[in-house]
C-alpha cells in the first residue's frame, strides 16, 4: 500500500554513488560560491581519528578540493586524540575554548553547536570519529544533495547493505533505539518523519542558515531535536537522505541504549509540549533507573540524564557579530 511518504522517499533518497563525480560536484560548488566545513566531534578517539583525517584531507582537500576546512572539536579527551588529529593536519579545537563566556557543557551536542560558531563553511558536515571503515563517501554522499538542490537544507546518512536476502522485500532501517523508540514516536506524532530511514545517524550535512536557527540539546537528543525542529520550520522538503552503504563502529550495550532512549524521550516530550501537541505535561523526572542483579540480590542504579539545550546560535551576539547576520 502506498503511503504519503512515497513521493518524498523517491525524490529525496539517494545512494552515495550518485555523487561519485567529484569534479562535477566541485564545479557546481564553485559556481554556487559555497564553502564546506567538516566537523568531527571527539572524545577519546585516538584510535580512529588519524585515519579519518588522513582520508578526508588527502581525498577531499588535496586531491579534490571539496572541503574548505577540516576541524576536530574535542570535549577534553584524555588520550592522544587532539595530538593525533593535529599531526595529520586537522584544525583542532577544545570545546571549552570556543565561546568561553557561554560556559561549557558535557555532551556531543555541545561540540556540534560550538562548531557553528567556530567553523566558517556555508555547509557543515558532521561525521562521527568512531567509524572504522571511513571513506570519502561519508562526506560527498552527504553534501551532494545540498550542492545539487538549493531547496535541500538537511541531509541525513543511512546505511543499508544487505549481505544476503532471499526475497524481494527486506526490512531496512535503523538500530535498536530507532526501531523501538524513535520510529514509533514519529509514527504516532509526525508520520511524515518516519520516512527518514536512520533518524539517529551521527552523520549529516546542513546549511548554516538552518543550523544557526535550531536549538541543540547537548546530549543524546540532538539528532531527534534537529529533525523535529527542521521539520517544523522548513517542512519535509528540506530533508534528503543518502545511503552510505555500511558503517562499521563500536556496538553499544543495552544499558547504554537505555540511557540514550531516556535522553531522546526527554527531548521529544519537551518538543511535543512546545509545539502544542500535548499540554499540561507534568514535570518530568531526569533520573534514569535500571537494575543490576547478583545472584538473588537486585540493585537499582540511578543516573542523572539532563537533556539541556543550547539556544539557536543566531541568538548569540558574538555569533551575529562574527558572521554579520541579524537575528
Amino acid at each position, binding site marked *: 500500500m502506498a503511503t504519503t511518504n512515497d513521493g518524498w522517499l523517491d525524490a529525496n533518497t539517494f545512494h552515495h554513488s550518485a555523487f561519485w563525480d567529484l569534479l562535477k560536484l566541485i564545479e557546481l560548488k564553485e559556481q554556487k560560491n559555497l564553502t564546506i566545513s567538516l566537523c568531527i566531534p571527539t572524545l577519546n578517539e585516538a584510535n580512529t581519528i*588519524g585515519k579519518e583525517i*588522513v*582520508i578526508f*584531507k588527502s581525498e577531499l582537500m*588535496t*586531491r579534490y578540493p571539496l572541503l574548505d576546512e577540516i576541524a576536530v572539536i574535542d570535549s577534553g579527551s584524555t588520550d*592522544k586524540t587532539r*595530538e*593525533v588529529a593535529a599531526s*595529520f593536519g586537522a584544525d583542532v579545537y577544545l570545546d571549552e575554548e570556543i565561546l568561553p563566556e557561554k560556559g561549557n557543557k558535557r555532551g556531543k551536542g555541545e561540540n556540534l553547536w560550538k562548531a557553528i560558531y567556530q567553523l566558517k563553511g556555508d555547509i557543515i558536515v558532521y561525521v562521527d570519529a568512531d567509524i572504522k571503515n571511513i571513506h570519502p563517501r561519508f562526506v560527498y554522499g552527504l553534501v551532494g544533495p545540498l550542492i545539487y538542490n538549493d531547496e535541500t537544507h538537511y541531509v541525513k546518512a543511512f546505511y543499508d547493505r544487505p549481505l544476503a536476502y532471499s526475497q524481494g522485500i527486506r526490512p531496512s532501517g535503523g538500530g535498536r533505539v530507532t526501531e523501538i523508540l524513535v520510529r514509533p514516536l514519529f509514527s504516532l506524532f509526525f508520520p511524515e518523519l518516519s520516512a527518514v530511514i536512520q533518524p539517529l545517524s551521527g552523520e549529516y550535512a546542513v546549511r548554516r542558515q538552518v543550523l544557526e536557527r535550531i536549538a541543540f540539546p547537548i546530549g543524546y537528543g540532538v539528532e531527534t531535536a534537529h529533525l523535529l525542529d527542521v521539520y517544523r520550520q522548513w517542512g519535509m522538503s528540506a530533508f534528503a537522505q543518502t545511503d552510505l552503504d555500511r558503517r562499521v563502529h563500536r556496538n553499544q550495550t543495552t544499558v547504554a541504549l537505555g540511557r540514550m532512549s531516556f535522553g531522546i524521550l526527554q527531548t521529544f516530550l519537551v518538543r511535543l509540549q512546545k509545539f502544542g501537541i500535548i499540554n499540561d505535561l507534568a514535570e518530568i523526572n531526569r533520573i534514569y533507573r535500571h537494575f543490576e542483579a547478583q545472584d538473588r540480590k537486585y540493585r537499582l542504579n540511578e543516573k542523572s540524564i539532563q537533556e539541556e539545550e543550547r539556544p539557536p546560535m543566531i541568538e548569540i551576539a558574538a555569533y551575529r557579530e562574527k558572521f554579520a547576520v541579524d537575528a
Partner: protein
Amino acid sequence: MDEEARSAVETLLGQVQAYREGAARLKDMLLANLVMVGEIPAATCQEEKRIRFIMDRFRECELDVISTDEAHNVLSVLPGRVGKDNILVCAHIDTWYGETVDHTVRVGTESIGGAGIADNSLGVAVLCTLPTILQELKVSFDANLILMGASQSLGRGNLQGIEFFLDHHPGAIRAGVCVEGVDLGRLSYRAIGMLRGEIIGRTVPNGVGNRAENRVIGALSETIRLIEEIPMPSHPPTTINLGSVHAGDSFYQPVEEGSVKFEIRSAMKGMVPKLQLRLEEIVSRVTLERELELELEVIARRRNGGLEFEHPLPAFTRSVMKQLGVRPLVRPSVGELSSLIARNIPGVTLGITERTRGVEAREAVRIEPMFAGIAQLVAMLQAIDFGICDGDNE
C-alpha cells in the same frame, strides 16, 4: 655508461635528501592510498577490487595508458621523453588475507597497521602515488616507465602475473625495480633457488590403507621425520621449511586426507633439484610402507641467478642507501625479481619502510622511514634511466 651518464648518476646521490623531503610533502596522499588499498581484501586470485582501485588512481593521475591484461595485472605507462625502451616498476597486489579477515587499517602518529599492510599494500600504495611523487619532485625519464600491479604473485599464484607480462610485453625492458612494503634497506639482486610444494596423503578407496584410523596422520608424521633427517649443507645456506601441516578436523573421525606444505631454499646451484629428488624418494618409501596414496605436488619453482655484488645497479643502490643513512639488508628474492632474472633483465627489489617493534597483532609499519624508501626508489629509477645497466641485456 658514458662519462656524461656516470656524472649524472653521481649527481643523483646529492639529490636523495631533497627527494626524501619532497616525498614527505605527499605524506597525506601516500597514507590515504595506503589506507584505501589496505582495506580492500586481495587474496591471491581475488584481486579484482584492488585492481579497480589502482586503475581509478592511475586515471586520477591523468595517465593515458591504463589497462589490465589476461593475467589480471594492472598496468600504466608514464611516457618517456624518448620512449625507446621501458623501465618496469612493479608491486605485487595480492596479500595473504582473504575477505573474512578484518582489514581495518589503524593510523597512528608514528605507524600504520593492518592485515597485509607490509606485504604488500604499502608497495601498491607507493605505486599508486608514484606519478604524483615524480611530478612533485619534477623527475621525468627518457625511457617509458611502466607501472605494474602484479597479480597472482603469492603462494599458488606462483608469479603468474609477472610471468604473463614478461612473456607477452612487446617492448624491451631495460631493467626492473620491484617494490615491497618492508624492510627499508632490503636489497635483493639475486634469486634464490626455491621449490615450494605440498605432500598430500590420502586413504585408498576400498584399500588396505583404510584399516586403521590414523593412517594418514601417521604417514605424514613419518614423512616429516624423514625430511628432518635429510643432511643440509650449512654453506651456502640451504633449508627445508615446513609451513603447514593439516589433517582432520575432529577428535575421533578417521582422517581421509592430510597435507604438509614445504619450501626448499638454497643458494647452492643444483641443490634444490637434489633435495626435490630426496623428497620424492621419501614419498615413495612412505607410500609403500604405509599402504596409502602419498603424492608430492610442486607448486612453485625458482632458479638461482641474478646480478653480482659488484654490478653497478646494486652498487649504486648501496650508495643511495648510505646517503640516506639506511643499512643495506642483502637477501635473495623468490618474488617478482626472480622472473626478471630468469629473462636476464637486471633488477632489484627494494623495501619502503621498517616494521614496528612491538606487540602489534598484525602487520604494522613505521611512517617516517617511508620517505627515505621512496627517495631511494626514485633515485634508482633515474640511475637506470641514465644508463647504469646499459650493456647488460643487449
